[in-house]
């Protein structure tokens, strides 16, 4: 199958407008004859479900959490970009587009990214109208701040919980449609498979997490807004429940998985303390606005710090290496995430890490506290400082924070065209679940933007085009494909439940995470990846023999849920390695040791790798097939990123 991204022709700024005009429309009175399934109720899912229901479609929305409000979008802290130029500092749609394309290390589509920047302004308007309490100035107008990787202040924020406030906005819109009867909400329900009829997605199979009932749902289109797969690393900033299952099962039904090896490692997380740790906590990137990142200049000082012989504040100024400021004088501490992360890793790799494990560098606020006063710093970051204190039992007002990179977001995901349609007609992917807009690295404050852009302002237009094409004839839930898929799901679950070995699913997950982090994290090599691939294959084989899955299907069974998710993560992990092996270039946060400049900086290979890798599932334990979608750059010139 050839990959047609369906990017409209014409000048960049007119692509989306023209495309909207060319899309087919569904007659208002016909809309109620269409059923749409939305899986996931985060920013992308809730906004899509609400917007489609408002248009008149009948929506069925699903989430595995007990309430749609708990989707993991809720945990985003920092903010959301919008090219409003409210601060009069030279921002524009084009600049947001340019920053995003550049920030993504030129591995995203121009057309998609421009559209994202274009609708970013509508998102802010929409959210404010819903009652989202963004931060405001004394004059009553909206406040902005600058965010990692950008030199303008275009980030709208709601203290340290922008994600929750935006999600509550989308959730309220969703609630309104539930109230109006246009959305039927299924909570504690996990999607386990996609039902396809004649190559078109026509429904899903779900498991009711309260009763274990395996059920089928039919619709004219299926939208996956199921988030990212960062939990493949076991330790990530994702919620424990975040998983790849919906996307992965769709992949196994034919949807291509794009750029699986593109994951974002966020530089400012609280470091790991021990094996017991179940997740990592992110400290908002906004901290880098006032905090200075440093590590000791010498290994000797670092050793003293690790053994607690001296404290951070005892390290003399001349013994400190403010490495981001030193290497990138113009961006300093505000370099994009990938650059900040990779440099922190370099420091610890060189033995200059701090903290008991040596896997941390400092983020120091001493200078800001001196300059602004403790109260001002508290007003800006109080909740983050409290959180840090809570977790580490260390007071960041008195001594620098210890930070270390952690997996935070996955740029890869289901391959979609400009309409957000996967290569399976009728199956769409929105938000972090798809791969579309961030390339090899995501800029801060643009994940929320993309989720809401897809849900509020893209899918309501593009879905109509498909629905108008297929017509409103009801989908027959009695079609044998539904029963067949359901039986396959039941058989798969039974296979999992039959596992009564000697190793817990969590142990497999942790092992998988170690492999991926070690070999497919910030630095990768041919040798390591090859080794890792064999390790994952062995892990998978072992899992299906020795894992323990307790309980039955017909009850609340967290063990079964987790087992299914980990089984999918293992398979995805292998594909990530395969993808990373194929991409023999350094790009974004992914440093391929075979591809570096003389100074040891990441070296992109535009000649050979300016494409999207889209992987096709070929059957259990078969190598997946790579399809390449060439990236065409008509407006921006590909340069080696420099933040010096």
């Amino acid at each position, binding site marked *: 199958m050839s990959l047609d991204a369906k990017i409209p022709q014409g000048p960049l700024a007119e692509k989306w407008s023209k495309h909207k005009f060319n899309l087919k429309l569904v007659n208002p009175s016909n809309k109620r004859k269409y059923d749409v399934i939305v899986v996931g109720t985060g920013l992308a899912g809730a906004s899509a479900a609400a917007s489609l229901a408002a248009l008149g479609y009948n929506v069925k929305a699903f989430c595995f959490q007990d309430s749609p409000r708990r989707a993991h979008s809720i945990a985003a802290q920092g903010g959301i970009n919008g090219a409003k130029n409210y601060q009069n500092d030279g921002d524009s749609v084009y600049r947001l587009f340019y920053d995003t394309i550049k920030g993504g290390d030129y591995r995203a589509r121009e057309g998609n990214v421009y559209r994202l920047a274009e609708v970013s302004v509508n998102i802010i308007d929409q959210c404010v109208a819903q009652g989202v309490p963004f931060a405001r100035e004394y004059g009553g*107008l909206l406040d902005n701040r600058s965010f990692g990787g950008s030199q303008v202040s275009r980030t709208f924020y709601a203290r340290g919980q922008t994600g929750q406030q935006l999600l509550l906005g989308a959730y309220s819109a969703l609630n309104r449609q539930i109230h109006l009867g246009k959305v039927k909400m299924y909570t504690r329900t996990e999607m386990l498979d996609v039902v396809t009829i004649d190559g078109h997605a026509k429904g899903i199979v779900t498991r009711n997490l309260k009763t274990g009932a395996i059920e089928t749902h039919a619709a004219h289109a299926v939208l996956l807004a199921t988030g990212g797969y960062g939990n493949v690393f076991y330790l990530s900033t994702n919620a424990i429940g975040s998983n790849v299952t919906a996307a992965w099962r769709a992949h196994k039904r034919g949807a291509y998985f794009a750029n699986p090896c593109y994951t974002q490692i966020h530089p400012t997380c609280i470091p790991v303390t021990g094996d*017991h740790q179940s997740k990592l906590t992110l400290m908002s990137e906004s901290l880098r606005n006032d905090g200075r990142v440093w590590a000791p200049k010498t290994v000797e000082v670092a050793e003293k710090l690790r053994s607690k012989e001296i404290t951070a504040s005892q390290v003399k100024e001349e013994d400190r290496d403010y490495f981001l400021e030193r290497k990138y004088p113009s961006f300093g501490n505000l370099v994009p995430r990938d650059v900040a992360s990779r440099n922190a890793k370099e420091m610890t790799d060189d033995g200059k890490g701090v903290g008991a494990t040596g896997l941390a560098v400092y983020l120091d606020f001493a200078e800001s506290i001196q300059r602004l006063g403790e109260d001002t710093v508290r007003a800006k970051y109080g909740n983050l400082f409290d959180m840090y204190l809570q977790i580490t039992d260390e007071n960041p007002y008195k001594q620098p924070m210890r930070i270390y990179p952690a997996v935070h977001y996955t740029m890869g995901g289901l391959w979609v065209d400009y309409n957000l349609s996967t290569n399976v007609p009728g199956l769409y992917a929105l938000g972090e679940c798809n791969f579309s807009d961030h390339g090899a690295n995501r800029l801060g404050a643009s994940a929320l933007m993309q989720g809401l852009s897809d849900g509020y302002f893209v899918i309501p237009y593009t879905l109509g085009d498909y629905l108008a094409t297929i017509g409103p004839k009801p989908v027959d839930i009695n079609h044998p494909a539904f029963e067949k898929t359901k039986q396959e799901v039941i058989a798969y679950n039974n296979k999992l439940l039959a596992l009564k070995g000697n190793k817990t699913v969590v142990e497999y997950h942790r092992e998988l995470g170690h492999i991926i982090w070690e070999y497919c994290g910030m630095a990768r090599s041919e040798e390591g990846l090859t080794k890792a691939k064999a390790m994952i294959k062995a892990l998978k084989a072992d899992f299906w023999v020795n894992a323990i899955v*307790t309980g039955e299907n017909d009850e609340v069974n967290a063990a079964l849920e987790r087992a299914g998710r980990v089984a999918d993560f293992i398979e995805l992990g292998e594909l990530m390695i395969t993808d990373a092996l194929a991409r023999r270039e350094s790009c974004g946060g992914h440093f391929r040791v075979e591809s570096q400049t003389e100074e040891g900086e990441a070296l992109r290979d535009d000649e050979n790798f300016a494409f999207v890798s889209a992987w096709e599932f070929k059957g259990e334990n078969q190598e997946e097939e790579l399809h390449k979608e060439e990236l065409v750059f008509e407006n921006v010139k590909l340069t080696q990123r420099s933040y010096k």
Partner: protein
Amino acid sequence: MNLTLKVWRQKNTQTAGKFVTYKAEGISPDMSFLEMLDVVNESLTRKNDEPIYFDHDCREGICGSCSLYINGHPHGPKKAITTCQLHMRTFSDGETITIEPWRSAAFPVMKDLATDRSAFDRIQQAGGFISINTGGVPDANLIPIPKVIADEAFNSATCIGCGACVAACKNASAMLFTSAKITQLGLLPQGQPERYSRVQAMVAQMDEEGFGNCTNTGACEAECPKEITLNNIAFMNNDYFSAKLFREEQAHDHTGGE
């Protein structure tokens, strides 16, 4: 650390539950409370026993999934945090910890320590929104909002819907939760058109769910992980009485003058 846990175990909503005692051994003070339970669950799993079920997700205090009534406190003894942010260093070695689910008729126990909190969703669905569709909204800066109003609305908006207020209240009342949403939207200019219908709809739904009544003890405020204040309840009361006693809910009949 070694601890003794008394945990409520209940197969499902229909069956009765009971306390079961477990040993939690080799617990690190750096673990979060939920990580401690993970350790217990891992050992149960290895014995092919059923692990303890509890709701949890983000583990950074914002999704509102985690609950747990720990030694007489929702979210444990520390102020202004959720259970996932509670660390074992708060407890002492050898301590016995009793863990119970939220207790409320409106939150039936689903399994072990997890309850069904969909009543909260239904309260929000009854009117916790501003009735606008996607698109067609004015520019975000067209409505200036005084900073004090914006900040106050934000304070109310920080509610994570965990239900600790209901769990802490001696009457299992949901007024703090309900009032937080009402106050957020009732304060903002965007929320004014539906201000008085919203408060009536949400309070009616709250009553229907079977929550208790507020007796202004302030336990909810003290236990709220996001420190939502009783002022929200006062705001809700005021709006509700205003709506019920002084506001016109419909336009007067008008038949002429097409």
